[in-house]
């Protein structure tokens, strides 16, 4: 149990996918301008990440290893992720058309979100069990959601601030993201797994 908890903390904070491993930066910058869209993206990504780690594990153990087809790993994973993303997109469109519009292209782009594929690949590379895979995916998703939402909160404040003209918009967002990554360095070395 403690191990699983540490696994989540490690994936969420210490080895945060966005700020420490620099994966999934595209949605991190793309949908963080508003808290509500960040929340929506967080839910979508959490769902896709957790689901795809399970599916990736199943694909790995039931299909790729028995058939000795590890060379198809990336292809198979991306297909599984694409299905999960497409499913999520349909669900979001039904549940909240406004959110669907606000997330725009970033929702289908979760497919090519390297954090999602990264989790799937890391899971298999580290030979996690099913439960571990789920927890690792969940931890990664929680970390992604955490920084996305926090960053959105800060960006909402930045939009109201009197920022010098050359730094307005994306540049100050990138600088702030850098500072956030700096702050996350404080976690480094905390959990060695």
């Amino acid at each position, binding site marked *: 149990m403690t191990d699983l908890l540490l696994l989540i903390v490690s994936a969420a904070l210490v080895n945060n996918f966005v700020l420490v491993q620099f994966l999934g930066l595209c949605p991190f910058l793309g949908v963080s301008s508003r808290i509500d869209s960040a929340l929506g993206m967080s839910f979508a990504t959490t769902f896709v990440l957790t689901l795809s780690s399970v599916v990736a594990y199943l694909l790995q153990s039931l299909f790729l290893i028995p058939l000795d087809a590890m060379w198809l790993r990336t292809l198979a994973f991306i297909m599984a992720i694409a299905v999960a993303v497409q499913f999520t997109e349909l669900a979001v469109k039904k549940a909240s058309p406004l959110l669907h519009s606000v997330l725009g292209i970033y929702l289908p782009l979760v497919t090519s979100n390297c954090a999602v594929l990264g989790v799937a690949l890391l899971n298999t590379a580290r030979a996690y069990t099913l439960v571990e895979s789920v927890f690792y995916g969940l931890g990664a998703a929680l970390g992604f959601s955490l920084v996305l939402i*926090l960053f959105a909160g*800060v960006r909402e*404040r930045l939009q109201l*601030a009197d920022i010098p003209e050359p730094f307005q918009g994306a540049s100050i967002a990138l*600088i702030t993201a850098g*500072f956030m990554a700096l*702050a996350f360095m*404080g*976690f480094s070395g905390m959990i060695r797994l």
Partner: protein
Amino acid sequence: MIKRPAYPPRNTAIVMRSVLISLIPGIVAMTIFFGPGVLFNLATSIFTAVATEALCISLRGRALMPRLRDLSAALTGVLIALSLPQAAPWWLIVAASGSSIILGKHLYGGLGQNPVNPAMLGYALMLISAPVAMTTFWINPLTTPSISAAWAAYVGQANDALTGATMLDLYRTQFLSLTAIEASDHPLFTKAHLGLIYGYEWVALSYLLGGLWLIYQRVITWHTPVGLLATLIVISAFFSIDPDTATPVWVHLIAGAGIFAAFFILTDPVSGATSPRGRLWFAICVGVLTYSMRTYGQYPDAIAFSVLLMNFTAPMIDHYTRPRIMGHESSVKGSGGR
């Protein structure tokens, strides 16, 4: 005895000035125990901060004097100087002070707009960029450097005999490998030396004095310092049930930047949470993060990282700790019509 005012000061410059005044006991204690290098650092840091501030303001074409007069840059300079190693070379001070003013403050539009604490940002940047200097150029508390030795350190030729890691770092890296019995014999940590030689206690007490004066003057509220210090005490007391593996309460409290941060760093109003309840939560979270990073992380004193992390959560804390508006049913949803 000065009468306690009924309200906080009615002027930003007076707020900043009060904080500067309340830092004086701490600065005096630092100078006594860690040598004149502290003063060199202070002068460099203040000069750099004020000069950078002036440069940034004039680059933006804003009026210079009103902003310089509010002393906020000078205060950032002082805070930076006090948190950096006492034997740090001049370039480290200049880089820390300049980057905190430029990156931490003026990129975001100057006073009142910055999302993170400028002083802690400068400190963290230096910790990442110059980790050796930041972890080893602390004055060894067993020595008291002369003016010439301090100057040598200032120009970058520090004497190894004078410098070392901080006590918190030493405790973590060397002391925890000893047993409690062995430890009581260790020259650095025997009770007889406490306070009298190392000075950490006296520095901490001086900061405490200044901080209490700030509360008395209503410049800061009790929420932040109490939140941080209580959290540190409670957590470290809980874990120090086993003295062989845990750093004791007193080390957490006085050997690191705990008291200094509680009264002077976390209380930065701009980058912190603003409601009283929010400030309490902010400080408690900083306490928890600091303890865990100090204990499990790789950096000796994690206050800077904890503060930066919590700065990013401040908008959320503000949102969720808002008091219930009169006439409203719940506290979080604020909107309503008249």
